[in-house]
C-alpha cells in the first residue's frame, strides 16, 4: 500500500436510538486503538449540520484519507455523509457507513454485547473503506424521446404532458384507435361528465401534436438497452387503409357486405369488415379487419376499394417493424374485465340479459347500440326491474382476491343513470361493502341511495336462473339474515379488473409484476410510478385497479418522472459495477450465461461488462469460477477481510 490510510470514525448517538443500547463512548475509545484510525469522536446527531461540520473539520485538520460514519442504515444518510466528504476533498467512495442502528442498537437490549457488536461492525467498515478505490460516476448520454405504451387515458395523458414539455413522444397502441376503455364509457362518476366529451379533445390533441408520433395497430415486440438509451422494436400491423388519404366519408362501409359483432360495443351491435371503432376515433381513418374481410381474395370482393374515391384502400399493406430509440418508457397498458364465463353461477352467456358493466356502459352511451336507451339485449324491451351485482370476481378467494376499487362507484352511477332513463324502473344493488373513499364519492352514493331510492342489499348473489322469461336472482340479505329472491328483467355484473398484456410486456421490459400480473412499483408509497428498471415508469390500471382521476394523476406523475429524467444534461450511474480482471479471465462464459441484465459478453476470449447495463447485482461475481469477475469496492478479498476483522 502506497499511502498509509488515515481513517476517521464518527459515531452517532442518534438521540437515544443508538446511545441507549450502545455505549458510544466506549466504542470511540476502543476504535481509537485501531491501527488505521487517527481520529474518532461521537456526536448526538451526526446528520445534523454541526455533526456534518465535525466530519468536515476532521477531514481537513487530521488529513483523513477515509471516513467511517457509524450511524443509521446507509439508505438513510449515506448520501449526506458522502457529500460532506466530497466537500472536504475526499472521494465519495472513501466514506462508508457502519450501520449500528438498524443492525445493532434497534435489535439488541444487552448494552455490553451491543457495544461489542457495534465495534465489530465498525471494524468491518474500516477494512472496507481502506480497500475502497476512489471512483467516479459513469456518465451517460440521453436520447431525449419517450415511448408511451398504451393509448388509453393514462397513455394519452402521459404523452400529452411529455410532448407539451417539448419532448418527442412515441405512442404505441394495439387497437386501431386510441381512447381505450374511457371512450366506451357513458358518463363518469361522481360529476356525470360525459366521458367521450372530456376524452375526445385530448385524443384530437394527440393526433395534432407535432411532437407525438402515434402508432396504432402496433405492439412493442422487443426492448433492449438501458435508461436513457433504449432501443425498441415496434410491430405495426397493416391497417389496409391509408390514414392520411381516408376522409372518413364512409362510402366503403356502406358497400361492405360483411357484418360482424362490434367489439367497441362489446358485441351488442354489428359493424362492417371495414369500419371505424367510433366516430371520434384517432387516427380518423377506417380500418379493415382482415379476419372477416373478403377483399383479400379479389375474386370474392373488393367493393370498398372500388368506391373509395381517395384510393385509400390497399390490400397489399404489409406488417412493418419499426425501430425507435428512446430515453424513457411509460407503460400504460390498462385493464380488461375478468372473464365472466368463469363465474358460471351467474349464467353469463346462457342468459342474454345478464351483461357486464362495460356492456351496460355501452347501453347508456348516446353513441352506443341503443342510442342511450336502456333496452335489454334479448328482446329490446326496456327492463323495469334491474339488479346490479358488485364484486363479481373481485374480493373472491376463488377468483380475484383483490378489490377492483371502482365497481362500487360505477355501479352507483349505473343505478342512477338507469333511473334517469327509466324513472319508473326499480333498481337493486347487491354489495359486500360500499367503498366510496374519494372526493365527493360518499355523497354520490348517498344521493343514489336516498334521492333515487335504489335498494341496496348487503349480500352476495348465489345464483341466477331464468323462469318464465324473467331472471331470478337468489341471494341473502346479510343485514337481516333473510334469503332474497328477486325477479328481474336484466342483471348487470360489476366484473373485477385484470391487467391485460402487462405480463408479456413486463418480460420484454424486464420489470416485475405482482402475483396478479399488475406491474410492480418500486415502493407503493414513495416511488409509486417507477419500475425497478431505471427509466421505465408505470401508470394507470396496468399498475392496479383505479378510477379515471387517479389514472390521470398517476399518468401525469409518470410523465413528470420521465420529463425530469429526459431533461437532465447527462445521466450518471453508480460506478459500483462488475469489473473483469482480464489477466485472469479465460472467457469460460459462465458469467455471460447467467447475467440477468445481459450486460456481459465474451469478446476475444475475455468477458466484457457493459458498465451501463450492469446493475451491480453481483451474480456474475459469485458464479465466476476464476475470481476474475469482481464487484468494484466489494471484491471477494475485501469481503473476506471484513469478515475476518469482524469475527476475529
Amino acid at each position, binding site marked *: 500500500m502506497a499511502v498509509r490510510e488515515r481513517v476517521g470514525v464518527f459515531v452517532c448517538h442518534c438521540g437515544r436510538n443508538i446511545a441507549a443500547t450502545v455505549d458510544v463512548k466506549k466504542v470511540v475509545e476502543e476504535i481509537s486503538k485501531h491501527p488505521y484510525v487517527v481520529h474518532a469522536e461521537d456526536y448526538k446527531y451526526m446528520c445534523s449540520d454541526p455533526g456534518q461540520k465535525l466530519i468536515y473539520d476532521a477531514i481537513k485538520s487530521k488529513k483523513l484519507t477515509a471516513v467511517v460514519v457509524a450511524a443509521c442504515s446507509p439508505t438513510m444518510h449515506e448520501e449526506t455523509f458522502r457529500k460532506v466528504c466530497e466537500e472536504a476533498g475526499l472521494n465519495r467512495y472513501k466514506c462508508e457507513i457502519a450501520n449500528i442502528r438498524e443492525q445493532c442498537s434497534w435489535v439488541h437490549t444487552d448494552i455490553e454485547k451491543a457495544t461489542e457488536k457495534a465495534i465489530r461492525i465498525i471494524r468491518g467498515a474500516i477494512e472496507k473503506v481502506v480497500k475502497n478505490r476512489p471512483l467516479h460516476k459513469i456518465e451517460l448520454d440521453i436520447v431525449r424521446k419517450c415511448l408511451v405504451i398504451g393509448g388509453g387515458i393514462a397513455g394519452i395523458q402521459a404523452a400529452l404532458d411529455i410532448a407539451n414539455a417539448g419532448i418527442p413522444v412515441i405512442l404505441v397502441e394495439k387497437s386501431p384507435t386510441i381512447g381505450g376503455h374511457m371512450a366506451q364509457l357513458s358518463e363518469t362518476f361522481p360529476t356525470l361528465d360525459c366521458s367521450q366529451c372530456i376524452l375526445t379533445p385530448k385524443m384530437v390533441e394527440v393526433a395534432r401534436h407535432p411532437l407525438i408520433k402515434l402508432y396504432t395497430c402496433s405492439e412493442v415486440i422487443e426492448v433492449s438497452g438501458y435508461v436513457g438509451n433504449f432501443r425498441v422494436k415496434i410491430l405495426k400491423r397493416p391497417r389496409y387503409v391509408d390514414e392520411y388519404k381516408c376522409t372518413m366519408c364512409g362510402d366503403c362501409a356502406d358497400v361492405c357486405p360483411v357484418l360482424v359483432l362490434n367489439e367497441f360495443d362489446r358485441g351488442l351491435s354489428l359493424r362492417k369488415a371495414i369500419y371505424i371503432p367510433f366516430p371520434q376515433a384517432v387516427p380518423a381513418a377506417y380500418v379493415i379487419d382482415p379476419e372477416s374481410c373478403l377483399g383479400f381474395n379479389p375474386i370474392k370482393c373488393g367493393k370498398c376499394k372500388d368506391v373509395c374515391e381517395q384510393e385509400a384502400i390497399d390490400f397489399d399493406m404489409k406488417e412493418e417493424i419499426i425501430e425507435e430509440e428512446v430515453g424513457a418508457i411509460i407503460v400504460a397498458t390498462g385493464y380488461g374485465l375478468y372473464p365472466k364465463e368463469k363465474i358460471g353461477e351467474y349464467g353469463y352467456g346462457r342468459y342474454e340479459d345478464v351483461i357486464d358493466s362495460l356492456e351496460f356502459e355501452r347501453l347508456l352511451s348516446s353513441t352506443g347500440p341503443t342510442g342511450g336507451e336502456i333496452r335489454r339485449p334479448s328482446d329490446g324491451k326496456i327492463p323495469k326491474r334491474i339488479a346490479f351485482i358488485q364484486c363479481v370476481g373481485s374480493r373472491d378467494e376463488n377468483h380475484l382476491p383483490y378489490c377492483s376499487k371502482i365497481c362500487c362507484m360505477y355501479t352507483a352511477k349505473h343505478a342512477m343513470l338507469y333511473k334517469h332513463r327509466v324513472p319508473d324502473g326499480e333498481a337493486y344493488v347487491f354489495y359486500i361493502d360500499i367503498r366510496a373513499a374519494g372526493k365527493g364519492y360518499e355523497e354520490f352514493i348517498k344521493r343514489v341511495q336516498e334521492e333515487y331510492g335504489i335498494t341496496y342489499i348487503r349480500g352476495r348473489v348465489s345464483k341466477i336462473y331464468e323462469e318464465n322469461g324473467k331472471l331470478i336472482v337468489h341471494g341473502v340479505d346479510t343485514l337481516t339474515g333473510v334469503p332474497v329472491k328477486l325477479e328481474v328483467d336484466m342483471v348487470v355484473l360489476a366484473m373485477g379488473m385484470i391487467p391485460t398484456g402487462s405480463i408479456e410486456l413486463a418480460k420484454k421490459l424486464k420489470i416485475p409484476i405482482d402475483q396478479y400480473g399488475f406491474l410492480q412499483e418500486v415502493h407503493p408509497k414513495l416511488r409509486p410510478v417507477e419500475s425497478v428498471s431505471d427509466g421505465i415508469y408505470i401508470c394507470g390500471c396496468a399498475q392496479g385497479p383505479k378510477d379515471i382521476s387517479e389514472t390521470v394523476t398517476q399518468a401525469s406523475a409518470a410523465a413528470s418522472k420521465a420529463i425530469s429524467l429526459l431533461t437532465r444534461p447527462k445521466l450518471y450511474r453508480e460506478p459500483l459495477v462488475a469489473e473483469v480482471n482480464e489477466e485472469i479471465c479465460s*472467457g469460460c462464459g*459462465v458469467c455471460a*450465461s*447467467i447475467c440477468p441484465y445481459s450486460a456481459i459478453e465474451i469478446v476475444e*476470449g475475455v468477458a466484457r461488462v457493459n458498465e451501463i447495463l450492469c446493475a451491480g447485482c453481483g451474480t456474475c461475481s459469485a458464479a465466476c*469460477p476464476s*475470481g476474475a469477475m469482481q464487484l468494484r469496492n466489494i471484491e471477494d478479498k475485501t469481503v473476506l477481510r471484513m469478515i475476518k476483522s469482524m469475527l476475529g
Partner: protein
Amino acid sequence: MKKLKLAIIPTGSCSGCDTSLVDAGETFVKALEYLDIVYWPIAMDLKVDSLLKAESIDILIVHGSIRTEEHEHLVKEAAKKAKYIVAYGSCTCFGGIPGLANLFFRDELLKKVYIETFSTVNPEEKIPGVTCEDERLKIPKLREWIHPLDEIVDVDLYVPGCPPPGEIVEKFLETIIAHAERGEPLPEKGTVLAGLKTVCDECPREKPDKIVVKKFVRISEAKEIDEKKCLLAQGIICMGPATRSGCDARCLKVNMPCRGCMGPSPEVVDMGAKLISMISSIVYADKEREVGEERLKKVVEEIVDPAGYFYRFTLPGSILGRTRRRRDKE
C-alpha cells in the same frame, strides 16, 4: 562451480512427482550437473541421517501430503537449514487428493482402513502409531489432519499439478539451472509456477454463447460426447473454468474433463466453494424461476460425491477445510 545442494523429501506421496522430475529428460540431466543431491530416497541410496545431518540445503523440494508425524518432523528439520523451499505437486500446494481424508476424523479413518474394510483381517485391531511387540519397528503416528505444506513451514515456490505437467517441470528446472549457472534469482516468495488464467484459456474446445445445464452426467456415463465442444456445456462437470492454466489443457484434449489439479486461480480463496457456486449458477440458468426450486435441487443432487468432486485437490487449504480443523481444536 559450486553445486546447489538439493534435498527431495517425499511425504505421503504416490511418487508421481518423482517421476515427473525424471520425465523432464534432458533438462533434468542438465540440471543434475548443477545439483548435489543430499537426499532423495527414491533415486539415491541416502538414508534419513544424510538429510538430518546435512549442514545446509540450497533447495528443498517436498512432495506428497503431510500425513504422518514423521513427515512433519522431517520437513520441519530440513526446513531449518533450507534456503529455498518448493512445494512440489498438488499435495503440498493445497493438500491434494489425500487431503480429502480431512472429511473424516483420524480415528474414523484408521478404524475404517485397518479394521472395518471387507478385505482386512486384523483380529488384534492393531492400528499405526502402536509400537510392535518386539519394539524394533515403530510406525509413525498418523497426524489428525492433512495440511498444505505452507501451514507447516514457509514455502517459497509452488509447483502445482498432479503431477506437475511437463511444461511446468521444465520451467522449474530451467529456473534452477539459470540460478546455478548465471546467478539469476529464484522466483520470489509465494510465486506459483503456473499461468494466471484458467484452463479454459488453453482449451481448444468450442465455447457456446451460453452455458446452461439441465442434467449433469459423469464422463463414464455420457452416451455421446461432442469432441469439439465445451464439456461443461454438455453437462459434464469440468473444473477448467476454476483451475489455473499451465497444463495446456491436456485432459480436455483427450476428452477428459479437467479435475482441477492445478489448483485455484490467484483471486480464489476456496476453489471448491467457487466451483459449487459456478455449477449451481448454470443449472437451468435461462429459466430458473419457471423450473422452480425442487427441480433445480434435483439436478444438483444427482452430482455424485460433490465434496470429492469440487474439493478434489484443495480441501485442506480451503476455508471449509480450515474451519473444520479449527472446530476440532476447540
